């Protein structure tokens, strides 16, 4: 794009004693981008965010915001604000005072201060709550105050540390949509930390999937879901079937994967790291909703139905395809032919080459 990125993390590491919480992260966050750091607890996502906010000093590496090296800058001298997991609203200040706090730190004139506080309370639908204290608000309202307080000073980047974690499911879903639309309206770069893959998929422009202090894969939701680059990513985002396979190269140059005896052509480029020898043993990942019944005459895996689970929006079917292999998981629409099977039925199952991802 040629545009300068908003945030650049370069060779970032953080060690706590002998534990490497962050083990080398390079990341660019674009202007106005909603980027999510997604991973299980202990993957280093929160530590990365804390380094970005300035609460932790990296062991090595650099943090650049808007073209300035802020690696050594204290939190109060960085153009970033944070929405904390615990909200961290000042209990001794009213909602108005909480929102005014960052503006006062910037020495905003009084008249403008009042106008902006009211404008932002309106933005998060809390007009009229100025004189309340945080403890007089519900969890969702506190969350909105924390959000308004973090954006009112117009930071270059907004950091969000699992801000919806304490809300109930319904409210969380509503807030996801609201957050996303707010981010679009503000055009502000958001860095969002979560362990909830559904949340990440709902809101993010790009997702950085993290494990063991590293970024396993970074890409749009569709990219990380449909083209996971590692087994960890495939299993962490959504459900998947990981099946052992071997790959060989045809004289024509086409790669063929053999999965439990079923051969499928491999679509797209196959990384040389995946197939270095003639017969490479790898895994393939196939999403449950991509498995279908084979046409007559089409090669297929024969599976015996173990269980059929109704999940409201669809039906989950578990089928055994090989003795030493985990049962195949399928998800199908409520009235499709696959959805009406019963345990013990024999099925002929297959998937399209495009729906299969090769993983080491």
């Amino acid at each position, binding site marked *: 794009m040629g545009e300068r990125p908003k945030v650049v993390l370069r060779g970032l590491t953080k060690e706590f004693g002998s534990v490497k919480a962050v083990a080398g992260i390079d990341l660019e966050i674009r202007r106005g981008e909603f980027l999510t750091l997604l991973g299980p607890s202990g993957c280093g996502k929160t530590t990365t965010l804390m380094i970005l906010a300035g609460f932790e000093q990296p062991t090595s590496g650099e943090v650049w915001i808007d073209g300035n090296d802020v690696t050594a800058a204290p939190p109060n001298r960085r153009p970033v604000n944070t929405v904390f997991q615990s909200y*961290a609203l000042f*209990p001794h200040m009213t909602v108005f005072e909480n929102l005014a*706090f960052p503006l006062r730190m910037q020495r905003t004139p009084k008249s403008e201060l009042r106008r902006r506080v009211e404008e932002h309370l309106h933005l998060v639908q809390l007009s009229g709550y100025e004189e309340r204290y945080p403890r007089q608000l519900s969890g969702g309202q506190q969350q909105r105050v924390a959000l308004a307080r973090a954006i009112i000073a117009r930071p270059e980047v907004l950091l969000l540390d699992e801000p919806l974690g304490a809300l109930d499911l319904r409210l969380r879903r509503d807030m996801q949509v609201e957050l996303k639309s707010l981010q679009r309206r503000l055009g502000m770069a958001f860095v969002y930390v979560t362990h909830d893959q559904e949340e990440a998929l709902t809101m993010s422009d790009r997702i950085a999937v993290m494990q063991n202090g590293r970024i396993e894969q970074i890409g749009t939701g569709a990219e990380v879901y449909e083209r996971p680059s590692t087994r960890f990513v495939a299993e962490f985002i959504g459900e998947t079937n990981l099946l052992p396979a071997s790959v060989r190269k045809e004289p024509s140059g086409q790669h063929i994967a053999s999965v439990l005896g079923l051969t499928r052509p491999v679509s797209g480029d196959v990384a040389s790291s995946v197939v270095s020898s003639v017969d490479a043993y790898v895994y393939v990942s196939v999403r449950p909703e991509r498995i279908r019944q084979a046409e007559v005459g089409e090669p297929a895996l024969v599976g015996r139905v173990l269980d059929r689970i109704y999940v409201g929006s669809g039906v989950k079917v578990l089928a055994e395809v090989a003795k030493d292999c985990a049962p195949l998981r399928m998800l199908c629409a409520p009235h499709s032919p696959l959805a009406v099977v019963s345990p013990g039925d024999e099925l002929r199952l297959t998937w399209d080459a495009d729906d299969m991802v090769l993983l080491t």
Partner: protein
Amino acid sequence: MTPRTRFGLVLLLAPVVLWLLAFQVIPLGLVLAVSLSTRGRYGGIVWEWGLHNYVRFLDPLYLGILADSLIVAGITTIVALAIGYPFAYYVASRPPQWRNILLLLVVIPFWTNMLIRTYAWAMILRANGFLNNLLIGLGLIDEPLQILYTQSAAVLGLTYVLLPFMILPLYAAIEKLDHRLVQAAQDLGASSWHVLRQVILPLTMPGVIAGSIMVFVPALALFFVTDLLGGARSLLIGNLIHRQFTQARDWPFGAASSVVLTLVSLVLIFVYVRFFSPKDDEEWI
């Protein structure tokens, strides 16, 4: 309320009521009664009622003593707060296993009698005591400084004796402080000074109030510290009361002085709490 629950309530409150009666209401009542009586010729109490002991207290001599006492107790409180707050903050920000050791160090001096420790200070401060010898030995002064038997020595002694009463409530308040609020303030652009002034201090104000009261009120009355370190020149209200009950054998006037001291303390505590408490009356910690 059914008779049964009323009976239960009475039963629950009885110990508290008895305790307060035995140790608060009755003793104070006795002091109040004695303060309204008259001193007998040989130091006894004659039950002739009147306000004459209080009228006597209005003498500029006694009012001056009261004013001096308030000043000394006030300075002691401020010094103790200035030393105690950073110390308590330091302790509260150590790792948990260190906190207990540091708090133990605060408490250990209590294991020695307060009187003996005050004598020790007199030894240190006197003309050819440890401090003067040290300063002369270092060549900083040529002649011993008169430290003992000054008001500064009295303030020093009171601060020393009462410092733990400042540190412990402060520690309790600071330890409860949610560190994430400090982080949030920094994140929102607050410098260290603003973080201290607008977040840490207001949120630990209950500890400041409790500590100040626990230093100020005893400082008004710890007569032996001012006796031993302040000497004859600094007669404070505690010494005055002590002398009325002992040397002067004037219990009624001693009692009247005690009542005045108690009332003045109460008024000051009330004003202090009103002034320094968060504007919002509700509890927020």
